[in-house]
């Protein structure tokens, strides 16, 4: 009930945000050289007369406002335009690549979140101890590693030198593997890109969790719980960790956007056929409609992730929705 109210309110808030993203994308599209007709003709061929004809048919000879209206109405029909690079509708290409990126991101964020928060709890257990110093400095160093470079180093070490793992792709091509065997193959291919993409976030969550734990330790309810005779372990895990986790959860939504950005380089390094690599291909081939299609779908992914995070947060924190006082 609280969740339903929250979702409806959030969905309402999404509308203007999405509108701004769409208008922004439209202007970027307008600013780029060439239009949809040029793009279409590159892949199909045709002369000037056909171009003018198509421009009239597609409404591209009208005013900017009319073109924006056209843009929006085609979006409403899930029409993201034509990709020159692939000679196919943008939406097809994008949706084909989306699952790989979601798999990569989902695995990376889940592992980073789990491992990072647990290591953060460990580090905060005795602030200033050798374990804490090692974890803190280590995480700061990892936090400074450029992900794409880490990817290259991992390839050199694990694929080139040790020959333990594949250096790229999402699965072995034309291996004919099925079911569990195929899943295992995909998992092997995911290890290095997930590590390259997720390591920074692991470090980030570790640092945030550590800081949150130390901060929460100072709260009165912790002192009170110990004074009531609860064992320290129980206080740490059931009370401090649970409260310290809350700010990390709110960060998850924001991280969806930054991770999607990070997947561009990581997918390029590991040749993972995902949304990020698609963005790079679009830029390399000057395929602006395709790039903007990736951005729009990416924005929708981020919005969906944020919505999911809000629900998760509301479930974890009963205070959400109780709401602060506002003037009537």
């Amino acid at each position: 009930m609280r969740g339903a109210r929250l979702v409806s309110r959030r969905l309402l808030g999404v509308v203007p945000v999405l509108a701004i993203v769409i208008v922004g994308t439209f202007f970027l599209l307008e600013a780029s050289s060439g239009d949809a007709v040029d793009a279409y003709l590159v892949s199909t061929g045709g002369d000037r007369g056909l171009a003018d004809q198509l421009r009239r048919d597609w409404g591209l000879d009208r005013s900017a406002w009319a073109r924006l209206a056209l843009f929006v109405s085609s979006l409403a029909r899930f029409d993201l335009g034509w990709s020159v690079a692939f000679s196919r509708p943008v939406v097809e290409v994008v949706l084909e690549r989306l699952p790989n990126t979601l798999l990569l991101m989902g695995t990376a964020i889940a592992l980073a979140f789990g491992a990072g928060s647990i290591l953060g709890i460990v580090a905060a257990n005795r602030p200033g101890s050798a374990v804490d110093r090692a974890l803190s400095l280590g995480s700061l160093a990892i936090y400074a590693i450029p992900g794409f470079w880490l990817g290259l180093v991992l390839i050199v070490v694990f694929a080139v030198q040790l020959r333990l793992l594949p250096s790229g792709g999402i699965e072995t091509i034309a291996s004919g593997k099925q079911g569990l065997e195929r899943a295992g193959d995909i998992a092997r291919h995911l290890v290095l890109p997930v590590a390259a993409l997720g390591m920074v976030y692991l470090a980030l969550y570790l640092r945030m969790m550590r800081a949150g734990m130390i901060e929460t330790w100072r709260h009165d309810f912790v002192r009170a719980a110990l004074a009531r005779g609860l064992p320290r372990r129980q206080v740490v895990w059931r009370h401090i960790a649970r409260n310290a986790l809350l700010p990390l959860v709110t960060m998850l939504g924001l991280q969806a956007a930054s991770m999607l950005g990070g997947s561009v380089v990581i997918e390029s390094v590991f040749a993972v056929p995902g949304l990020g690599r698609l963005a790079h291909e679009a830029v390399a081939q000057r395929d602006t409609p395709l790039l903007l299609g990736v951005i729009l779908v990416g924005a929708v992914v981020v919005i969906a992730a944020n919505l999911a995070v809000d629900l998760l947060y509301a479930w974890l924190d009963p205070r959400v929705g109780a709401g602060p006082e506002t003037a009537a």
Partner: protein
Amino acid sequence: MSALRRFAGSPDGVVGAGLLLSFAIVAVFAPVAYPEDPLSIVGGPLVRPFVDWSTPLGTDRLGRDLLAGLLHGARTSMLVGLFAALVAILLGAAVGVAAGLSGGWIDESLMRITEAFQTVPGFLLALAFISVVGPSLPMVVFAIALGAWTGPARVVRAEVLSIRERDFVAAARVIGMHPVEIAWREVLPHALPPVVSLASVIVAGAILTEAALSFLGLGDPNRVTWGGLIAEGRTVLRSAPYLSIVPGLALLSTVLAVHLTGEGIVAALAGRRSFQ
């Protein structure tokens, strides 16, 4: 105890600032040490490091000096990092202050715009922006700032909103102080310090984003960049991995130095905020 003394008392901060200072010196004097264009060919291709002392870190597959590239690359990295962060913070702080102070529909629309920018991955936005306007140093700076200003904007707005409700601001209104003076004297000095502690994260992020852009070939083509060097080395990754690894190490240590300095700044600021 002064903020400077507290900074000096933080080992992380001292090490970071020291490192950063030496990188800055390297960046400033790179043209003195290597006055020639770092893109020019000076020796044989793929000379390994520590073999020929005229090119101590070796050469790439065209015979260009890696060390010269590294030193010149430091200039680009630091320049872009600093300016992108500066633009992002100034823009973000301005939006945050405007939203927090004005409230109402101005606040509402500024925040929706901020959310829209947060919804689009900053790196994709930079990619799109550069692919439309073309890669030049100022545009790279602006493209990076475009994805980084939302953080400071939200922090500043939240601070302004909370400070606006404090009693000493109410007291300033009661004595009849002008709203502009209240904003300038009572609110801003308390709202901005949290952004300072955010600055190191933004600088570090900007340096990494610039490197990633150059790695994908979207940096300023007339400048040597660390990301570009790594991309260049990638083509011979199996035979000459040092060409990618060494510039990456330079990148890593610069970013680490920025983070360490940030830890020192946070420690220096921590002492001044309590009021009892």
